[in-house]
């Protein structure tokens, strides 16, 4: 009853093709943005910001990146972790070499470095598909991981081999480094993620999104209607890696405050892929759902038994996370291969006719 579209007539094609054509969706989005930009800063505490929202937003961005590549363009990639790493290391080198330029600019620019690397490793996609392509992206993952540990120039020759994040300010307020408050970091991350999500939504609703989906669904037919496959696939790698790179830079600079190379290992690649699958391949909102579920799960696994007075060791909760995530993936694939996004669509469908059953 709340979700009726009755009475919402579209009188122009532009209105029909809008990203959020239904009024209730637009209202919902506005409410979420108000909560995110206004209420959370007013009411949130450090734990919520630092350990929940900031990483959730960063992983959502990385998931959107992978979703564009795997969900929309159908190109399976296991190199997301490494591409995130490229962004992080690029950002470090840029800000060390040009410390006076605003760090936010460098975070965004490092995405381009990631995009370049991603495009390079995407070249084989012209000749190979499916899990063969996944193996090719593993080549990227392992090679880049090796680079991160064996090329000291990348981590500024620091003795520990880890990235150390210098203090940087935006308009006089510290946003990276130990003195940056979680609120400032949260607002920067939120702004970047919101803008980039908007851009991603624009892309997938237009001709580029259609082009990718054509390549995904049947690339031979896509070629025959005039789509250049290599360009489409390389563009997908480029854009996806850009998003991963920015997410990686934010991960190090705006969340961890420093990092060791193994943050960007193959486990990270898998984790993001799971977020894509569980959230829903080929949906943007699914990226948020998937990131939320997979990221919040271990936190929940620690917090819930503690709430009941049964503390569990961190190692056990980590292992339980693995078990549950593994099971969730299989359960989702069996019951709803289109992930949480589809479940959300079904829920909205029920809301349309509520309180009637159909």
């Amino acid at each position, binding site marked *: 009853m709340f979700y009726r579209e009755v009475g919402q007539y579209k009188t*122009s094609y532009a209105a029909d*093709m809008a990203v959020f054509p239904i009024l209730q969706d637009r209202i919902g989005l506005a409410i979420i943005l108000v909560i995110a930009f206004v209420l959370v800063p007013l009411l949130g505490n450090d734990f919520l910001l630092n350990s929940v929202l900031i990483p959730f937003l960063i992983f959502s961005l990385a998931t959107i990146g992978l979703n564009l590549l795997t969900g929309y363009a159908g190109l399976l990639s296991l190199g997301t972790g490494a591409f995130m790493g490229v962004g992080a290391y690029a950002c470090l080198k840029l800000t060390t070499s040009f410390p006076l330029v605003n760090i936010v600019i460098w975070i965004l620019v490092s995405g381009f470095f990631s995009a370049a690397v991603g495009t390079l490793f995407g070249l084989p996609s012209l000749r190979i598909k499916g899990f063969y392509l996944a193996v090719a992206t593993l080549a990227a993952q392992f090679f880049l991981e090796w680079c991160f540990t064996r090329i000291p120039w990348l981590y500024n020759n620091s003795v520990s081999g880890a990235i150390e994040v210098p203090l940087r300010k935006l308009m006089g307020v510290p946003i990276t480094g130990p003195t940056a408050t979680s609120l400032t970091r949260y607002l920067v991350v939120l702004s970047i993620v919101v803008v980039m999500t908007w851009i991603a939504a624009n892309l997938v609703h237009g001709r580029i999104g259609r082009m990718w989906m*054509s390549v995904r669904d049947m690339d031979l*037919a896509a070629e*025959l209607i005039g789509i250049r496959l290599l360009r489409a696939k390389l563009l997908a790698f480029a854009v996806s890696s850009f998003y991963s790179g920015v997410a990686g830079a934010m991960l190090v600079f705006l969340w961890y405050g420093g990092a060791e190379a193994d943050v960007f290992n193959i486990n990270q690649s898998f984790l993001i892929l799971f977020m894509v699958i569980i959230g829903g391949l080929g949906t943007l909102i699914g990226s948020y759902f998937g990131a939320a579920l997979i990221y919040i799960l271990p936190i929940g696994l620690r917090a819930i038994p503690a709430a009941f007075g049964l503390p569990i060791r961190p190692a056990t909760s980590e292992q339980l996370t693995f078990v549950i995530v593994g099971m969730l993936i299989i359960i989702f694939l069996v019951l709803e291969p289109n992930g949480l996004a589809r479940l959300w669509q079904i829920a909205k469908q029920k809301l349309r006719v509520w309180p009637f059953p159909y």
Partner: protein
Amino acid sequence: MKGPRARDVDLGTVLLAVENVSLAFGGVQALTDVSFDIRKGEIRAIIGPNGAGKTSMLNVINGFYQPNSGRIIFKGEPRAAMRPYAAAQGGIARTFQNLALFRGMTVLDNIMAGRALKMRRGFFWQLIRHGPALKEEVEHRRRVEEIIDFLEIAAIRKIQVGRLPYGLQKRVELGRALAMEPDLLLLDEPMAGMNLEEKEDMSRFILDVNREYGTTIALIEHDMGVVMDLSDRVVVLDYGQKIADAAPNGVKCDKNVIRAYLGEPHGTSA
């Protein structure tokens, strides 16, 4: 059933000529030294028993297969090998025997995908969508809606194509090909699996496309009634070779054609 129509079409200019094309896959000779032409504005049928190489012929014209020898001359330009992208850019569109729709997308998106070559707004405009990119989308959407109205599929245009019945899927595929505004439309068994009513609808669409838009059509079809009614000229293939090339009536009576389809009565010498 009507006889062949007299048409005041410019039957002089050749749009596409196939010259001595041969094609082999491993040990199988799909096409042997086939030559024929397709004239601008006509409806050309390609017929023959199963396995005659008709689909392979279309695939060669399309650029999907490269012939081992011979060449295609399209719009006066000879090509020994043509990539699918070049064929699409040159104005060749086609439908497929086994349907090649984008199953994850809606009818509308599938046909809009056909406009891919015509949508030129650059990547950076796409990033912000509002403004020139959206205007271009609306323009093309208008054109696509015309095609949807023409094919009478307006009621289902927001439905995912994977959920549609076969006959409607074939119509969507035709719509996608039409969205390319092709000079030459290749139809591979457009009537396959349809009942009489659906066939009449499809025939009507094909005729309308030819008459109203002047699109040249090459058509593979098994239903002889459709072939006789619709086509201006017919080329007959058997075991990869051309055995007849004439107007429908001429082909109907051709001895070689009858033998290819029906075989020989027992006791007659070859």
